């Protein structure tokens, strides 16, 4: 058991160590990439090693540093955290291969800084997943904000610096609100430790708890809910591996992860229902889902279209939480990995297209599917998945969310889901058509186009394969983990 307690620390320490190593060996590119890959494998190994015990219901707790009475810098590995951590670990490994291919193909500058920041960022993300209390979560959260800044402004153009300022402004101000919420929680209850089913009940008047929730929501601005989403499209200026990472693994998922944690482990579903927070969250989420899709409809830059799609999809998770029902929560939690694998595929393809053709605008991508068939097919598969069509995993969260809406007594949310499904198809399928079936304007310009290098192509295929696998075998391991998490927060027997 002693060994087991070390694993969460190992999972976070390995990438941190790797980041230092990367700085040291930065000049030797192949060794540096080797460090990244090794660290990714090691971290994945550490996370997987903890999986069996988490699946059996154990929670691994490690207290690292006492800080304030009632709030240590501590880690706890539970089922829901494992969902995020597993997604992050697997995708960091695939993204590392992809990033190596991308950075070298584009001959990007400052690669050492890039890999350094990446390693620290993944450590922070996994730290968020394994946080035992709000304080630890906050610390890792802010680390994540700061360390992703150099990644966002990587290309160092004036435009990138401006975008970086916007990025920092939104996220750091959000961090201030999160700190305020954290402090208020501590003042109200004397503790910040996550408790399944919540610990805030009865600790303050309704108004205070509602305001506190709003503070948390603004604090988790990383969830990109409207109207505080502006940092995400701005951050698209980053190199594509960063966008893929930001959008699938680290930053945005950390945001929604935080909100789910608050709902299930700080407030608890009953308290949220009695405070009317479900309705508030449902309103915010519905507004975001629809409006972001409308933005995506007419956006010609592929990465920006995908950014707005991400904003919309993240609010699916918030919508699931707002239903305050078992199926809704399940849908929200399962959408985290499902969306992650599908969205990272889409961004991977966008990056592959940039590498192979230099093109960023959808209207310029006519017919590239003929020269890049596998890549385009993977895009089509992932887009179909996001639209919630079989045989990819998106349909699973769609079903759960629909059931959750009825279960939670909010059938009007079904209309949001219906409208959103139509809008998703409306902005994704034209891209599929343009890439795969449309005839190019100028045949000659496509002669040099071919599939991206294998080191980029294989991760793309793998993420799609995993998405299909999740469709056929959702239980392994995500649904099993989520069942345990739901049982935790609803206080029912673990199945």
């Amino acid at each position, binding site marked *: 058991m002693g060994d087991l307690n070390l694993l969460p620390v190992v999972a976070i320490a390995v990438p941190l160590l790797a980041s230092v190593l990367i700085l040291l060996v930065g000049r030797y590119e192949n060794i540096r990439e080797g460090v990244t890959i090794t660290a990714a494998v090691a971290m994945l190994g550490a996370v997987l090693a903890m999986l069996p015990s988490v699946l059996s219901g154990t929670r691994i707790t490690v207290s690292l540093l006492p800080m304030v009475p009632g709030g240590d810098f501590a880690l706890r590995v539970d089922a829901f955290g494992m969902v995020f951590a597993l997604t992050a670990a697997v995708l960091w490994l695939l993204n590392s291969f992809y990033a190596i291919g991308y950075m070298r193909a584009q001959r990007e500058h400052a690669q050492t800084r890039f890999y350094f920041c990446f390693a620290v960022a993944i450590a922070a993300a996994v730290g968020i997943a394994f946080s035992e209390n709000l304080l630890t979560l906050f610390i890792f959260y802010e680390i994540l904000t700061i360390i992703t800044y150099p990644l966002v402004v990587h290309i160092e153009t004036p435009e990138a610096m401006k975008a970086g300022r916007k990025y920092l402004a939104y996220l750091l101000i959000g961090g201030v609100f999160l700190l305020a919420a954290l402090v208020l929680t501590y003042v109200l209850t004397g503790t910040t430790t996550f408790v399944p089913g919540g610990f805030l009940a009865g600790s303050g008047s309704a*108004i205070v708890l509602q305001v506190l929730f709003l503070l948390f929501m603004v604090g988790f601005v990383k969830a990109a809910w409207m109207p505080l989403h502006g940092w995400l499209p701005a951050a698209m200026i980053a190199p594509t591996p960063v966008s893929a990472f930001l959008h699938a693994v680290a930053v945005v998922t950390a945001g929604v992860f935080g909100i789910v944690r608050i709902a299930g482990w700080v407030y608890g579903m009953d308290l949220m229902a009695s405070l009317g927070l479900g309705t508030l969250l449902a309103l915010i989420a519905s507004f975001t889902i629809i409006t972001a899709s*409308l933005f995506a409809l*007419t956006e010609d830059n592929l990465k920006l279209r995908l950014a707005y799609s991400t904003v919309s999809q993240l609010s699916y998770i918030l919508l699931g939480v707002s239903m305050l029902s078992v199926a809704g929560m399940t849908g929200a939690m399962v959408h985290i990995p499902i969306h992650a694998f599908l969205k990272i595929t889409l961004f991977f393809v966008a990056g592959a297209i940039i590498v192979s053709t230099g093109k960023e605008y959808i209207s310029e991508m006519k017919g590239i599917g003929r020269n890049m068939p596998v890549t385009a097919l993977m895009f089509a598969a992932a887009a179909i998945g996001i639209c919630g069509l079989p045989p990819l995993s998106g*349909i699973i969260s769609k079903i759960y969310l629909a*059931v959750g*809406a009825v279960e939670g007594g909010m059938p009007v949310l079904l209309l949001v889901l219906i409208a959103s*499904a*139509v809008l998703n198809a409306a902005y994704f399928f034209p891209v599929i058509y343009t890439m795969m079936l449309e005839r190019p304007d100028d045949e000659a310009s496509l002669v040099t186009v071919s599939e991206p290098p294998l080191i980029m192509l294989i991760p793309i295929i793998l993420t799609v394969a995993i998405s299909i696998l999740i469709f056929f075998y959702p239980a392994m391991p995500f649904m099993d983990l989520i069942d345990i998490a739901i049982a935790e927060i609803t206080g029912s027997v673990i199945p």
Partner: protein
Amino acid sequence: MIDIPPAFVYLLGIFLIPVLSGQVRKVWTLLVGVLGLFLVASLQSVAPALTIGLLPGIDMVLLTVDPMRQVAGGIFALSGLIVLIYATYRDLPTAETVGILASIGAVLGVVYAGDLITVFIFWEALALASLLIIWSPRSAESVAAGYRYLLYHIFGGSCLLAGIVYTVTATGSAAIGPVGGGGLLLMLVGIGVNAAFFPLHTWVPDAYPKASIVGSAALCIFTTKAAVFLLAEIGGWGVTVAYMGGVMALYGGVYALMQDDIRRLLSYSIISQGGYMVAAIGAGSVAGIDAGLAHMVSDILFKSLLFMAAGAVILRTGSHRLSGLGGLWKAMPVTTLCAVIGSLSLAGLPGLNGAMSKGMAIEAAGAVPYLSPLLLVSSVITVLYVYRFLYLGFFRPAPGVREGPPLRDPPVPMMVAMGVTALLCIVLGLFPGILTDLLPGGTGAHPFALAGLIESVAIFAVAGVLLLAVRPLRQPWPGATIDIDVLYIGAGRAVTWFSAVPLMHIAGAIDHGIERTAVCLKRVTANPTVAIQIAGKSATLPLMQAFLDPSRSQAYEEELSYLRDHYPDVQTDIWGGGYGLIFISIIAFLYFILDVVW
């Protein structure tokens, strides 16, 4: 006895398509089709098999077999094979072949599913497969039509999911059976999109004519009939559904009459005939369900036959408008014969399968007031447009001189496919028992009974009189292309315009506002006390100018300008401390207020 859902044969068979080509690919598709048909035929009634646990208490049942499913599965697999034979006349694009095989697989998945969730998953797969078929020609109009098709069917699929979810949470099980409560409307909308209820029908005449020749023949078999089958399976509908069937029959018939494009005419005919099925099923009786199923089988046969014949005509003549066709009976006798058999079956001539099942449907609809007369009127209209189709398309002297290669019958695969289907129409028409013995309720058909014969004769007589009396009916006219989809297209354009123009402006304004606030904050925080002084002085400047004499207000103004010009380097004296006192008082006040509130 094999326990494999037939859908998997087709869905797995797809994987070899991209790697094969030419004749090998055609052989493979036929092999898959034959295998699938054998599998369907060999299934025997089994209790639900192949279950997968989804939600607590909700199981997905991939395979369950009963007489109703056997009838549907049989006809889908059989016509699927016939279309695959038809398709071998040329090398189809990969997307189209994949689409056709996937459609057959998906529809069989819907048929043999034992629970609503599985139905939904295969339903969505069917929409995707049909989209592939529609997009294959890659023409500008097929792109647009496919896009509209997709949006329609995603909308319908999501409504269906919503309805299913309602039922599942209300009853605690996903078993297929009558629904009620909140989910009913949503489910009807969802099924109605596929079944082409009015006003959710416009995708049929929009998309089907724009697919390729093979594509149309394939499309007409699956989507609409899958919906009819699901309606029959679920059952327990009220008279509203029955009347919807009547509306569909009449609307489809009238619009079919108004068409010039032959495939558009046939598309509206799909809606019209679908109306008979929906009306019979909506009538609610066992005989009604049987009638709906029987007419589904008949319609699949003669409609696909007609689409195949239309495809042959388009292939050889290059023309798809009745106004440009004519005189084909001499040059393309086989095609004409097949078209005649299909048309007369559609029209309800006793001796062909259409009459048999149409009679059953009209009889079952008799239980609902005013429904049978609606259907009979639609039958008369059907004869009218059938006449136009045959006369204007095949039998009248060709208008003008036709250019291009001399006309002849289509390639052998087409003729084989059409011939087999025509034969089936005749056989089932002369020996209705072959089909009715398989029907779940055991209802019989009496096309040759006196009542049935009189009905048929009456319909043809009335139609004949109308044709003789109303001359324009015998002449070509420009087709009516306006249907209520103008409203939907308008709405779609409005949404797109909204996101492109006003939404962008609002977002830009908000963004700009936030940026200006940020810039303003940045400026203020450079020297806050002076900034507040400037703000205060600017606010009171008008008052000063009003109440003080000019020289003193002038000095005030100069002081203000000095502060502004030298901002943020201006130092200020402790006068600024007054503002600090004000701040502290405000905060203390708030603290006490909140303390009371807390």
